């Protein structure tokens, strides 16, 4: 499959602030996840892809075209922005139909496409209500409907799952799967790796405006598993458990806190969590709580960046 998005040394600054810095990436078709912590540059990259803004430097092509103000390209892409902004005075159907009309469809056809798109995002019962009355999740789905209504070749979706309840989240992921199976290329951004993971194997990791890793989820997970992870436990007998941990090669440092707290740093978190239940049972130390405070993406990215 050939690349649908090619970025070469793309940089984008907002005055003194760096949005993207020398990003070079080539994205094949299909469903791809753009993953990175908040402020990584995902939204900037997406705005560049849909031609809302221009790169400060470097070259970018989407479906073989330069995006900024490219009307030919706009017919082929759909964009669901992150910002919760809609024309609140309009009804859901009117809103989507009005935007579809701008693709050159007749009023009747636009209306038909709008209804179909709203049905696909499960808003058929609410489409005659004013958008201003919608819940956050419904507004998110309306934004998605306007992006898919005209049947784009490439769908660019910025944080599509934020604000959705678990059912809507599942339905939205299913929709992306369907679109992907039907041949639509989907690029979606998220700061939550496992959300993207449930949808696609192909991910692009960016952080602080730079490409960090690209490839299958398996490749990236292997990379991440080597990240030294801190695990915080509360146990009845912390000293006995700490003594047992010292036998493990992957355990680097152990710190005590309060009377029953234990911070353990491990270089192999998967093995750690595999062995922990048996060890706790064997010693009878009674684990009261367990958490991994630096398991979030920001910490992992910081580790990868070094």
């Amino acid at each position, binding site marked *: 499959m050939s690349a649908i998005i090619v970025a070469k040394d793309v940089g984008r600054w907002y005055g003194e602030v760096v949005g993207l810095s020398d990003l070079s990436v080539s994205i094949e078709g299909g469903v791809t996840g753009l993953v990175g912590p908040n402020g990584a540059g995902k939204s900037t990259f997406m705005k560049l892809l849909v031609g809302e803004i221009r790169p400060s430097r470097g070259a970018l092509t989407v479906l073989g075209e330069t995006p900024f*103000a490219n*009307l030919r390209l706009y017919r082929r892409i759909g964009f669901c*922005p992150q910002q919760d902004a809609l024309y609140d005075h*309009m009804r859901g159907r009117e809103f989507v139909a*009005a935007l579809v009309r*701008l693709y050159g469809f007749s009023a009747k056809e636009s209306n038909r496409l709008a209804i179909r798109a709203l049905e696909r995002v499960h808003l058929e019962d609410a489409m005659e209500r004013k958008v201003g009355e919608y819940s956050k999740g419904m507004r998110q789905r309306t934004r998605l409907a306007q992006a898919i209504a005209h049947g784009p070749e490439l769908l660019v979706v910025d944080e599509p799952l934020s604000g959705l309840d678990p059912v809507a989240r599942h339905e939205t992921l299913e929709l992306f799967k369907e679109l992907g199976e039907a041949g639509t290329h989907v690029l979606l951004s998220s700061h939550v790796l496992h959300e993207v993971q449930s949808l696609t194997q192909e991910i692009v990791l960016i952080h602080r405006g730079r490409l960090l890793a690209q490839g299958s989820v398996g490749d990236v997970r292997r990379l991440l598993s080597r990240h030294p992870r801190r695990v915080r436990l509360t146990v009845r007998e912390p000293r006995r458990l700490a003594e047992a941990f010292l036998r493990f090669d992957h355990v680097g440092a152990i710190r005590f806190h309060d009377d029953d707290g234990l911070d353990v740093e491990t270089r192999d978190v998967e093995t750690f969590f595999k062995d922990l239940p048996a060890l706790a049972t064997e010693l009878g130390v009674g684990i009261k709580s367990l958490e991994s405070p630096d398991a979030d993406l920001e910490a992992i990215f910081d580790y990868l960046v070094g």
Partner: protein
Amino acid sequence: MIELLRATWLLFRMQLTMVMRSRRMLLAILLAAIPPVIALIVATFAPGDVKPGEILASISFWLNLQVIVPILALVAGSAVVTEEIENRTITYLFTRPIPRPALLFGRLLATLVLVWLLLGSSAIAIALAAAQRTGELPDGLALRVFAANIVGGTVYTILFATIGVFLRHPMIVGLGYTFAFEMAIANVPGGSQSLTIQYHLRSILVDATETCWQSAEILNIDSFSSPGEALGTLAVVAIVTLVVGALGIARRQYVLTA
């Protein structure tokens, strides 16, 4: 070109309700109501020798054209592009296959329709209020007030909409322009008056041969150009400003804040 006209028409229809329902329009309605109310008060309480033509001429010249028309146009015109940016909905329009100037033209047209409606009604209401006095209005005066209002509303709205294409806070610049430049220069005797939109609007409004203008204490009343000449100059100003705005919006990048 056909694509631009089609998109302009679609956006005009799409945005008309939005423009109508905006808070700025409420303010515009209040502004438009001020001159007729003042005209009614003056017509009711002025001394007996004051003629209706004098009331209409003075209020139109000193209050309506100099203050209300530019401020109302500023309130409405500065929102043409900035409202889409502030609401962060500009993304939907800029990622559609429509020429970018259609956004400016479509929303501007929707705004102009409302500006015309407000300033046109205001002009008629001032004339009706002044006509409460005994005596007749001079021939054509009400029509000239109406025309000056509509032309003034149009040119100023285009100007402030174009400023909004380039600046994030067009209201501040617009206020500065209205008070520091237009009002000041237009009232300083000499040739520099012709640099202002106000001067050309006054040229449409004033007929120096009528007695009502002679008693309105207007400086250099004989220096105004002919209405035809003034209309031509203002048309050029409006078209050039519109072209600059269209070129600007085609190239500008708008960074939306979270």
